[in-house]
């Protein structure tokens, strides 16, 4: 099982795969796809709130990455490069669609019947999902790269084509808004 980059350091395996893919090895590229597909899809879903758009964008991003592999500089951060392609693809689609607002998530299930604790937990997750979904897309994109992909502000800036300071600012604002909206609901229940 290949371990792909989940933090600051790209593993030797990933660098090897990238070099092999650059030499035309489709199997190597397919391994990279397998490692990043779901994560990229999840991020794009959080941006678009549409599973079909997210999947289209994911595939388009990988196709662009494949077509431009020769331009990727060995040793630099493949994950940030890939997410940057995805973000640019998302922006191009958004401009083409001339949409200014992202619809709220449609796939979030409501609370189901069950034990009280389970019900409360699901309601809390639903509340959190709505709150994150209501963040401006720019803030949401930056926050998710920080929290879910554990990217540094420098890497987030590379992905989103902004300054490091702006990346920090967007994460700052996202956290601030969410804390304001969610407030006491984030307090741990007392045993």
């Amino acid at each position, binding site marked *: 099982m290949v371990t792909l980059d989940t933090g600051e350091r790209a593993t030797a395996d990933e660098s090897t795969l990238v070099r092999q893919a650059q030499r035309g090895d489709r199997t190597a590229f397919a391994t990279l*796809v397998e490692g990043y*597909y779901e994560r990229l*899809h999840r991020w794009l879903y959080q941006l678009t709130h549409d599973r079909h758009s997210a999947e289209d964008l994911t595939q388009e991003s990988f196709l662009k990455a494949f077509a431009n592999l020769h*331009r990727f500089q060995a040793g630099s951060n493949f994950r940030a490069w890939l997410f940057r392609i995805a973000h640019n693809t998302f922006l191009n689609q958004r401009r083409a669609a001339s949409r200014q607002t992202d619809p709220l998530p449609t796939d979030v299930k409501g609370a189901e019947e069950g034990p009280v604790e389970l019900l409360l937990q699901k309601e809390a997750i639903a509340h959190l999902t709505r709150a994150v979904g209501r963040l401006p897309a720019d803030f949401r994109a930056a926050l998710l790269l920080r*929290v879910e992909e554990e990217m540094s502000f420098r890497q987030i800036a590379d992905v989103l084509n902004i300054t490091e300071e702006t990346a920090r600012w967007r994460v700052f604002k996202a956290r601030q808004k969410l804390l304001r909206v969610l407030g006491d609901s984030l307090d*741990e229940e007392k045993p």
Partner: protein
Amino acid sequence: MNCETVHQRVLGLERPDRLPAEVSAHLARCSACTAWHRRLLRLEREIPTIPAPAPLHLQDFLARLQEQSSPVEAGPIVLPVAVPDRSAPGPRKERGLQKLALAIALAASLLFFAVAWWAWPRRLGTNHNPTAPTEQQVSLLEARLKDDARWKAARTPQERLEVLTHVADEVHVQAHSLIRAGKLEQLKGQARLYRAIIEDGILPQADALKDLASSERTILLQQVARHLAETESAAERLALEVPSAAGPLREIASAARDGDRRLRHLAARS
């Protein structure tokens, strides 16, 4: 260190679970901030648990990739035209060639920008500021935008408005950086630039959103207005914390407030 300052510091950390010593010291004696910090940590722990649908077509896509013919033949890959392709940073040699191409494109764009600048509809509607922009404001904004690839790529008032909102944000953020670095003498310039972006950039583009559907126009204007309102609040708060920088910060807040009011007025008329 007061509680508000602690919150500002922690919210801007890459790892809010790794606190600087002075912040930890404050938390040790402040139960309210300790509770606030716990909420933040819980928030960051729980965001990855937000449900998202699993992708449906990974295996199909992998099968397609493994086919003999190139996957890119399956469909056109649309890349932005006449814009440096930032999606694929290449090796140094290619970057050098890209820079040369960019320099040539920039020269052509500057000429285009100079012509387009005079063609901008600057005074649409009675609510636009009747005072002609000063030469200084115009040249401040021009200087800020002339190297901006996003600005050059923007084709419609909507896209330009989006870019200008980002640029305004960046100027505001730069102001914060200058304060942190103690470079207060440069703040006045940032404040003037911020006002130029609002009055000579954002408001004229907002006036020019005629081709959008009314509901879409309203939503967009309200979004930008909300953004400016937040900038106003942030700048006013910081002015209280850093009295030596209060003048320029209040100027930024005032420009944001003016922009917010005028955009809301435009939105109400949509």
